[in-house]
């Protein structure tokens, strides 16, 4: 397979932000399709990163670097991919729920999922149920991720899911929730599709839902 694809993988693994755009351009000029670059260049790189991270040999800041590299390349590839309507890994809508300003966990999940090839829309923090609903209609995500760090704000996860139902978009999306006080049983209780105990687990779960 082409030299440049493995260079792209390495570029992702090493978190080499500076070279990725040029490499992506070169790859396209070499006549490789956006899909090939994604599947045979970027994704193998990110998969490797995922494995190394799990094994404890890579660390969050490095994974985020790789995610950023991936992102840089996707900026160029995405229009082409949509044009040739190739199915991408998926779309993820994410936000910290109403009343909660803690969003470090949410940010981690967002970046991990981006690394996994998702297209991310991050609503930020203190997001009301109707804001989620609007965004779902507009962005049409496959997965909605909600984060809460307080036992009080956990509740608005339930409210948000209700709101999605009432707006009739609940079945269009999978809902994943997380955050320190959140548990599996709580996730079931409020009718979420899944609970993740940490960012890496969330990314894996999101991937499962779209594959």
């Amino acid at each position, binding site marked *: 397979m082409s030299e440049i694809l493995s260079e792209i993988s390495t570029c992702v693994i090493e978190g080499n932000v500076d070279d990725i755009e040029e490499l992506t351009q070169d790859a396209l000029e070499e006549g490789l399709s956006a899909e090939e670059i994604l599947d045979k260049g970027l994704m193998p790189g990110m998969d490797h990163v995922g494995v190394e991270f799990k094994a404890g040999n890579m*660390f*969050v*800041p*490095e994974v*985020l*670097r790789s995610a*950023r590299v991936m992102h840089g390349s996707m900026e160029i590839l995405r229009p082409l991919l949509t044009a040739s309507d190739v199915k991408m890994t998926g779309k993820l809508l994410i936000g910290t729920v109403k009343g909660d*300003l803690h*969003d*470090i966990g949410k*940010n*981690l999940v967002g*970046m991990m999922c981006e690394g996994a090839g998702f297209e991310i829309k991050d609503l930020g*923090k203190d997001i009301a149920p109707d804001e989620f609903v609007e965004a779902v209609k507009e962005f049409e995500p496959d997965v909605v991720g909600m984060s809460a760090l307080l036992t009080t704000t956990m509740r608005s996860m339930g409210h948000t899911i209700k709101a999605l139902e009432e707006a009739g978009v609940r079945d269009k999306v999978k809902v994943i929730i997380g955050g320190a006080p959140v548990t599996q049983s709580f996730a079931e209780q409020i009718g979420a599709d899944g609970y993740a*105990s*940490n960012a890496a*687990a969330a990314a894996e779960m999101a991937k499962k839902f779209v594959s």
Partner: protein
Amino acid sequence: MQVLKNNYLVNATPTFEVLSEDEIEAIYFAALRVLHETGVRVYEKEGVEVAYSGGAIVEDTTDDSSLVKMPPWMVDRALATLPRKVVVYGPDRNNRMELFKNQIYFGAGSDTPFTIDPYTSKRRRATYQDVKNFARVAQTLPNIDFHMSLGIVQDTAVGTYDRWQYLAMLEGTTKPINITAVDLDGVRDQLEMAYIRLGGKEEWKKGPIFSLYIEPVSPLSHSEEVVQKLLFASDNDIPFVYTPCPLSGATAPSTLAGTAVQALTESLFGIVLSQLRKPGAQVIIGGLMSNMDMKTAVYCYGSPEMALLSAAYTQITKWLGVPEYETAGCSDAKMFDEQAAMEATINISTAALIGGNMIHDVGYIEQGLTSSMEMMVASDEIIDMVKRIMRGIPVNDDTKALDVMEDIGPGGHYLEHDHTYNRFRTEIWRPKMIDRQVYENWELSGSKTYRQRVHERTIEILETETEPILDEAMYKELRRICELADERHKDEELDVDMFS
């Protein structure tokens, strides 16, 4: 242009102090008074002679001993010629310990009758193989800087076990070694072995590859062997640790200050005698100062008083300008358990903070009667944690990161910032056996306790094949010294087999 700071004092490391300078002096002058007015018992004629001709008062001479009293000026004179820095090398000269002021080195303890079998976890008498294995573990652990036997070899002749112990250690490690000797002949043989290891007597002059452990008996008593070793070590440029083990409340006053006074008196006698014998003789003092637990009558190795006294004594030795022999990484627990973890964590912290130069007894449990590889492997990680704290808090424009805060602003995060990316590997300490997974992942990986992980690591170290350190010929030559010693001393042995 960049303006540099001046008149700006930096704590490059944390600073820790038990005694004020006035208190140190009070203890020192009290010790001078005891040495002059109470005196010490010396059970060795030649030693008494040396002291007497050096100006000491000799009284109350019996057939086996004399009371020796030394006026303060003898101490002052001795301190003037006492080296302030002692260097001990590893057998292959690749490792070295520079013992002075603020240098910190951690290492094992020696001569425990019992050890915990790393496989069966049962307590039994230590053997040659145990001592060799401990040396191999010490060789592997990054935070162990010097080594001691951590076991009495008890499957060889008893009267000459010290030579076998040294051989076992030479087989296992190239880190500096602190030896023990059953008597003067034992020191001679081990020095001979060191010459062989070095490839000649002349090599020793370039720097010693072991120091000798010598222990006078508290209170204020210096036995025949002890004094003979001291004189021989002085004559032959062997750095020696002259360390009493006063037991506060039993063989020393029950006040920690009083125990320090007595211990210092005992060490000062060693210093004076060595300098009289050979000005410039290399002495390390200090050692194990602890209390008797008055509920169980045992010698505490894990008590806070032990940590506190050792720290105080270290300050005294720094003030005197003598290298210090500190104590840490040890416990009164009978196995490596939570108690051992607590006692080791805190006494390692105090020893590191105060800066005892040669910090020994890592791996001791059960009041120093038993050694434990798990204790040693765990202590290595504890030392590593403490060393992270010892790096202190550098304060400069880069570490203050005001510009970074400006970049991030309220509500942002630092995960992706270069300031984080470029520093996380050095700023954030990485555990080896300490576990930080989230609960679910910990369960998935078998819900192991720390003890289980330490055990696995210990076995892993033991079963990792390593190149033999001694070649066949060298080994045979060294072994020969041990065998000759056995031959010479065979009639001292009991006709019954003592241990196995």
